[in-house]
């Protein structure tokens, strides 16, 4: 993994990275409360607690008009790409004003206004779609780039091979990001994955692959910046493999009893990306108070976001028949 020289850090960026991670964490903590405590979220939500460095570090390398494709575990990516937290929370609660009008929920969260073209409920499906978004961009002569995030479990699906081969053959501006939290639902991914994993596979498909400590947000940000710069300069697609850890269960409902008992606690203690970034900032001379303020601001924001979302009405019933298609009526045909 790449070493990062902390001396060269930019304090402003480091603060921003921390602030974004705190916002993601706070958003998801509230989302979990909304699900568990308030029973306001009926569908599954997949938290990324402990993985915030991936989202914050990668997305800061992007412009608003760059494109992001994400997974079922996409809150962090979406927020870091610039989506509005309230619209997102409304979506999780299936409310009016949700970023997908309450139709998608957590697993299909999207904000096309900030280039976020969707989370996905099908593991790995976004890999070919992201390659294609880059294909479209290239055909139109745009100078945008695409980030396509997927989990370690997704590398065992066919679209991983097809999408990456495609991007490489057509020389498309895509940064493939494998956010490797070591689990595929209840299964330890290594136990069902042959060979050396995402980076090795990407290399065999002709890509440059960079493996980074995904809990080190500075390292992630630097790597993402470098890759983004190469892509903007017309370089071929690349793979960024981020090693992190899923601290929660697969969904907020999953107690994750299948894990070694102290695994998550140990990871929290040693590798929490927020704690690590706080330490870094403290070392750069930022006061505990200032760091606490960042934390508190995020908490306050997201508590308010949940309250406001919870107070929002459900969408109009008729929207259930809107935006199906232009051609032909979606209305009831038979009863």
């Amino acid at each position, binding site marked *: 993994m790449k070493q990062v020289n902390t001396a060269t850090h930019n304090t402003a960026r480091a603060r921003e990275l921390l602030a974004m991670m705190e916002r993601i964490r706070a958003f998801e903590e509230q989302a979990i409360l909304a699900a568990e405590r308030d029973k306001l*979220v*009926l*569908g*599954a939500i997949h938290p990324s607690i402990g993985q915030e460095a991936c989202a914050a570090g990668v997305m800061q390398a992007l412009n608003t008009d760059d494109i992001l494709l994400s997974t079922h575990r996409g809150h962090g990516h979406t927020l870091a790409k610039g989506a509005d937290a309230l619209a997102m929370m409304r*979506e999780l609660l*299936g*409310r009016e004003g*949700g970023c*997908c009008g*309450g*139709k*998608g*929920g957590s*697993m*299909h969260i999207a904000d096309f206004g900030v280039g976020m073209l969707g989370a*996905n*409920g*099908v*593991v*790995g499906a976004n890999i070919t779609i992201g390659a294609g978004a880059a294909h479209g961009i290239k055909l139109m002569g745009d100078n945008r780039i695409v980030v396509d995030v997927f989990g370690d*479990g*997704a590398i*065992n*699906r*066919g679209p991983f091979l097809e999408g990456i081969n495609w991007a490489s053959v057509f020389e498309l501006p895509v940064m493939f990001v494998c956010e490797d939290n070591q689990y*595929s*639902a*209840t*299964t330890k991914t290594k*136990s*069902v*994955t042959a060979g050396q994993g995402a980076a090795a596979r990407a290399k065999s498909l002709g890509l440059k692959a960079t493996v980074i400590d995904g809990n080190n947000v500075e390292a992630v940000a630097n790597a993402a910046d470098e890759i983004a710069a190469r892509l903007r300069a017309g370089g071929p697609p690349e793979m960024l493999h981020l090693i992190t850890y899923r601290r929660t269960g697969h969904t907020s409902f999953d107690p994750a009893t*299948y894990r070694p008992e102290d695994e998550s606690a140990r990871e929290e203690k040693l590798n929490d990306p927020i704690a690590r970034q706080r330490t870094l900032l403290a070392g750069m001379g930022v006061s505990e108070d200032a760091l606490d303020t960042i934390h508190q601001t995020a908490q306050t924001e997201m508590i308010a976001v949940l309250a406001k979302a919870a107070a929002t009405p*459900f*969408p109009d*019933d008729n*929207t*259930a*028949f809107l935006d*199906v298609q232009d051609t*032909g*009526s*979606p*209305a*009831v*045909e*038979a*009863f």
Partner: protein
Amino acid sequence: MVKMTYVEASREAVREMMHADKTVWCVGEDLGRGSVFGQYLGLQEEFGPDRVADTPISEAAIMGAAFGAAMVGTRPIVEMRFSDFALCATDELVNQIAKARFMFGGQSRAPMVIRKPIGLWRSSAAQHSQSLESWYVHIPGLVVVCPATPQDNYSMMKAAIKCDDPVVYLEHKNIWQMEGEVDKSLEVTLGKAAVRRSGDDVTLVSWSDTANKCVAVADRLATQNIHAEVIDLRSLWPWDKGTVLASVRKTGRLVVAHESVAVGGFGAEVVATVAEQAGDALRGPLRRLGAPRSLVAYAPNLEDQVRITEDMIEKAALETLGKSAP
């Protein structure tokens, strides 16, 4: 008779068949932890990781590999988790498994049970809520089973495992916890409907969880002195045309109800068949209830817009009798 939930019933059937036949094995993601809904809880402990195999997230390989293993003499039970994900293995199911025996002139068999939980369940949105049973009925070579009760999920799972054809086995996610008495000695023949209520006034044809709603509607109608016959098809291929036609000849009235999209749904096949073969017996309008040709949304109230309810079925039944709902 034993009290069991729907999920326990098929699990028990699988367990017993695994004891009875060493060639039966289960394959899918997270099976060692029971899979998504606990359908396999305890089985890996009991039979070991070879016979209850945890796989990579590779639906095409799960389906394709199970097929290969079936061709050499094992009897795989394939878990697709949500029927939606099974679409990642459509070539394997439709072009390979369904066609092999015919294409190879009878040299091969693919005795497999392919489990694909279907249906609306708890705000799961468009990629986790589909019911595509009509697709599989349209594919020669496949058997299609949609059990609606613990008893059927026990007996039909056993029949499916014993069957030498590939069986697409569609459990409904919304009734995993449904309880019922199970008579373990009861054997079912695939293709035989269950007449869950007898009646002379109107025939209600359905399958999967919607059949349970039809039973509830029949009970409601009974209080209005209307006697509905409820036919739970249980399997859509083969489907029990004889029982349906006989019932419609008796009642002269038909309501078909299913959760899946009405347009191109299997309800059309039932209605068309009745119109073709017992059209002369009809004494009221034919009614077909299915979801609008829209998608399943996440918000609970939007999700409800595409749901077939007991009220709708009751109303339709009354309409075939020229009455309106009370």
